[in-house]
């Protein structure tokens, strides 16, 4: 496992102390830390090549455009697809909204159904509620099985021919459960429905070949995979991107603008209204380069190992309940738990005194919290820079929390 330990030197923030203790950052599911090469790539861009893209005949504009498009093609390679299938958005949330509005407003009507799972992040839930309201299409939920995985035992009962869209996550940011991609794609396609994969927690943590997944659309966020804030990606099958109306209008996304009517630029540009997040695209490109150098197989193996260790050590803590699969082949490195009657928020505050950053709350998945019948959970989540010893620090801090709350 520790063969990735040397990477820590690339992450300036990991040298920080929190409350007098070394930072133990276990909140990568919320956002990841950034290695120096990502910061350097953006600085180099601003210091030497900054200009607006696709707009000018001058040298800087050409340099900026080249770097921006080059970043797109590197991100495309990273998920094993063509450049034209990657549109840059503000993030995963923005990308799902593009799909929900762009497809939904133009293809959905009353009587149609949209299927999501109860474990979705609000990003893959609230846009569908909105589109349901605007179009009259009905929202239907998939429940979970006893391993916290989307239940596929009775799919035909839910996914019938009224269903037009099936939207689900590649990995739950709460339970860590992997989405049953194949089963859902098969069920959706057998009734002619399109599939939307929320890849925000999948793409950062495993080798992904977008074209091979079978889904129609996929989204992900740079900041969850070593990249900067402010950028994410929308991926689609070529014909799906063609049929998707752009959500936002503005510069860059047009072909011809007349007073009363406009036509759109070819994909992917029609989804990129206005000045795009240029420096962020370049930083995103540097992030996938970095991940590529490490190798996504190595990243996944490291996370599997540290997650297995965490599940083992956490199960030694009395009164601790884990919400998520125990089998590391069915899950990623987001581990949600509760500890006795200590509220997760209190837990987070207590372990923070030992430098440990975990997240507490509903994790933007309130319907899942209701399903689990908990108001909130605590969550530790791991990435390539985490160490086995950091799990030990977490467990030590949890034992201290038990003391503070008089649990012995």
């Amino acid at each position: 496992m520790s063969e990735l330990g040397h990477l820590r030197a690339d992450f300036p923030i990991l040298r920080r102390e929190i409350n007098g203790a070394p930072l133990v950052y276990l909140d990568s599911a919320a956002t990841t830390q950034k290695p120096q090469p990502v910061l350097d790539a953006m600085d180099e861009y601003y210091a030497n090549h900054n200009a607006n893209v696709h707009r000018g005949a001058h040298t800087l504009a050409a340099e900026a455009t080249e770097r921006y498009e080059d970043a797109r093609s590197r991100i495309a390679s990273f998920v094993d697809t063509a450049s034209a299938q990657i549109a840059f958005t503000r993030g995963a949330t923005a990308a799902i909204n593009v799909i929900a509005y762009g497809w939904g407003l133009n293809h959905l009507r009353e009587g149609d159904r949209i299927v999501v799972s109860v474990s979705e992040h609000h990003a893959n839930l609230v846009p569908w509620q909105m589109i349901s309201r605007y179009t009259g299409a009905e929202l239907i939920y998939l429940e979970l099985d006893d391993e916290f995985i989307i239940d596929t035992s009775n799919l035909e009962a839910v996914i019938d021919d009224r269903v037009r869209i099936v939207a689900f996550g590649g990995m739950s940011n709460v339970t860590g459960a992997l989405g049953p991609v194949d089963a859902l794609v098969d069920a959706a396609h057998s009734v002619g429905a399109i599939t939307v994969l929320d890849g925000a927690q999948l793409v950062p943590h495993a080798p992904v070949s977008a074209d091979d997944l079978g889904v129609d659309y996929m989204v992900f966020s740079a900041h969850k995979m070593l990249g900067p804030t402010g950028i994410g990606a929308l991926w689609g099958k070529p014909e799906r991107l063609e049929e998707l109306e752009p959500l936002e209008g503005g510069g860059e996304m047009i072909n011809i603008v007349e007073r009363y009517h406009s036509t759109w630029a070819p994909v992917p540009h029609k989804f990129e209204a206005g000045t795009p997040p240029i420096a962020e695209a370049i930083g995103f490109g540097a992030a996938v380069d970095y991940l590529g150098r490490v190798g996504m197989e190595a990243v996944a193996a490291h996370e599997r190992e540290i997650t297995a260790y965490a599940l083992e050590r956490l199960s030694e803590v009395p009164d601790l309940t884990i919400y998520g699969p125990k089998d590391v082949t069915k899950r990623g490195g987001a581990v949600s738990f509760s500890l006795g009657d200590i509220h997760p928020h209190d837990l987070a505050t207590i372990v923070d005194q030992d430098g440990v950053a975990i997240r507490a709350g509903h994790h933007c998945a309130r319907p899942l919290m209701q399903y689990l019948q908990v108001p909130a959970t605590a969550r530790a989540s791991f990435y390539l820079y985490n160490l086995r010893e950091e799990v030990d620090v977490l467990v030590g801090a949890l034992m201290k929390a038990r003391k503070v709350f008089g649990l012995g």
Partner: protein
Amino acid sequence: MSQLDELYREVILDHYRNPRRRGTLSGNHLHAEGNNPSCGDEFALDLVVENGVITDAAMQGQGCSISQASGSMMMDAIVGRSVDEVEDLMRKFKVMMTIEDGDDPLDPDRPGSVLGDLEALQGVRKFPVRIKCADLAWATLEDALAQAGR
């Protein structure tokens, strides 16, 4: 006392585990709800105000020890008091949660100045992100009293 022990004093854990006046009121009463979307803390309040006096109250909610203990201690502190006194208490509580170390939140010259158990919440000031937990019940109370039309 460590900062943690100051935050999680005995009395706070007691109120968290044994919240006072948990439940709902029947009959005529005011009702207000509040929540902190970022952490999920929820608090709801039933309140009876008669002739300018809070004669009965009940709380519901879920959340961290600080939000729930603050609510429970607030129940103890407000029932039987006049709305004037309670508003004074609200002000004092606000002052306590915002002042810097060293200042004295408790002005002995004001009537009803003693915050009592509530003083245990002083430790929260060292944890700025938790202040909104302590405030939740009080913001809900403010809403409820606003309905009283004063």
